[in-house]
């Protein structure tokens, strides 16, 4: 039980995927202008990430490992992810066109959200079991969504601040992310 809790603490706070491990940055920067879209993206990513973490675990465990094809991991995982994402995309497009428009190019880009593939690969690297893989995926996604939403609400505030012109927009957003990451450095050591 403790170890599961530790996995969550570790992925959400200590080794936050975005701010400490540098995974999933493009959507982090791209879909954080408004809190609403950030929340939507967070939910979509949480769904995709957890699902694909589990799926890729299964593929690795029951397809690649028995056949000794570990070197094909990347290809196999990315296929799994792409399928999960494309499926989600079509469902969202059908059910919520506005969300679709807002998430825009970023929905397909969940496929290329490094965090998703990163989780799959790290699961293998750290020899996670089924439940651990699921938790790892979930924790990574929750950590991603958490900082995404916090970041978005800070950005909404910064958007109306008197930021010097050259820094307006992406530059100040990156610096904000840097300062957030600075805060997250405080969690170092929580999980030894």
């Amino acid at each position, binding site marked *: 039980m403790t170890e599961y809790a530790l996995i969550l603490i570790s992925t959400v706070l200590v080794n936050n995927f975005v701010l400490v491990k540098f*995974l999933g*940055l493009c959507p982090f920067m791209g879909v954080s202008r408004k809190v609403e879209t950030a929340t939507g993206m967070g939910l979509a990513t949480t769904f995709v990430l957890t699902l694909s973490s589990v799926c890729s675990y299964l593929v690795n465990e029951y397809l690649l490992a028995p056949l000794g094809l570990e070197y094909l991991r990347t290809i196999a995982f990315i296929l799994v992810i792409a399928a999960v994402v494309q499926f989600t995309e079509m469902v969202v497009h059908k059910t919520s066109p506005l969300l679709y428009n807002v998430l825009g190019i970023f929905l*397909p880009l969940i496929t*290329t959200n490094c965090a998703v*593939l990163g989780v799959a690969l790290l699961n293998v690297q750290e020899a996670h079991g089924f439940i651990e893989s699921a938790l790892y995926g979930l924790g990574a996604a929750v950590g991603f969504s958490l900082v995404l939403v916090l970041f978005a609400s800070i950005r909404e505030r910064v958007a109306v601040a008197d930021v010097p012109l050259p820094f307006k927009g992406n*530059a100040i957003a990156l610096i904000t992310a840097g300062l957030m990451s600075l805060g997250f450095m405080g969690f170092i050591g929580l999980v030894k």
Partner: protein
Amino acid sequence: MSDISYREINANGFWHNNPGLVQLLGLCPLLAISGTVVNALGLGLATTLTLVASNVTVSLIRHWVRPEIRIPVFVLIIASVVTAIELAMNAFFHELYLILGIFIPLIVTNCAIIGRAEAFASKQPIPKALADGLAMGLGFTCVLVALGALREAVGHGTLLADAHLMFGEAARGFGLTLFEEYRGFLLALLPPGAFIALGLLIALKNIIDARLQKRQPAHAAVPVEAAV
């Protein structure tokens, strides 16, 4: 759009639509692997290679792919290319491979690559796609190296240390020590430093752009009027 010139392709890749500074794509490796110039260069070249290969392939098959399987096909192509490069690096640049670690397979999900496949290569003939891949890849590498240089210089006070990882033993001496007795500024090497450094680079670009635009009216008096 369809008759985009090579000059424009280059300008876009290196400056106006640079993946790292403007599109903000491919940020993960950009920030993660820019601790030193050598790492940055290694990853940048690997990425460029992938970008070129994937752009060409995608352009090649652009008429056959159906929209619903477009993304899976693209990533499949990219993943194959990347895995091949990964294996090759493991074999020929083993130490660099170890340092770049998980970020080599993660080139697959470098948003810049799939982004180009989607936005450009899937609509353009092969030569243009190739040029675009090259321009974008090298543009990305430039940013990566600039960021690496900035962080290495500020963080360690050196440049091109560990050059042997990439250029072989002969290059061990390439490294420059910029400041003797430099205590090091760790922040530059830590994650917050990476974010802040990229933010500063983007601001620098904005400043340069603003300067350029200011100078523009002198050259071309006619079309800017609308823009001002």
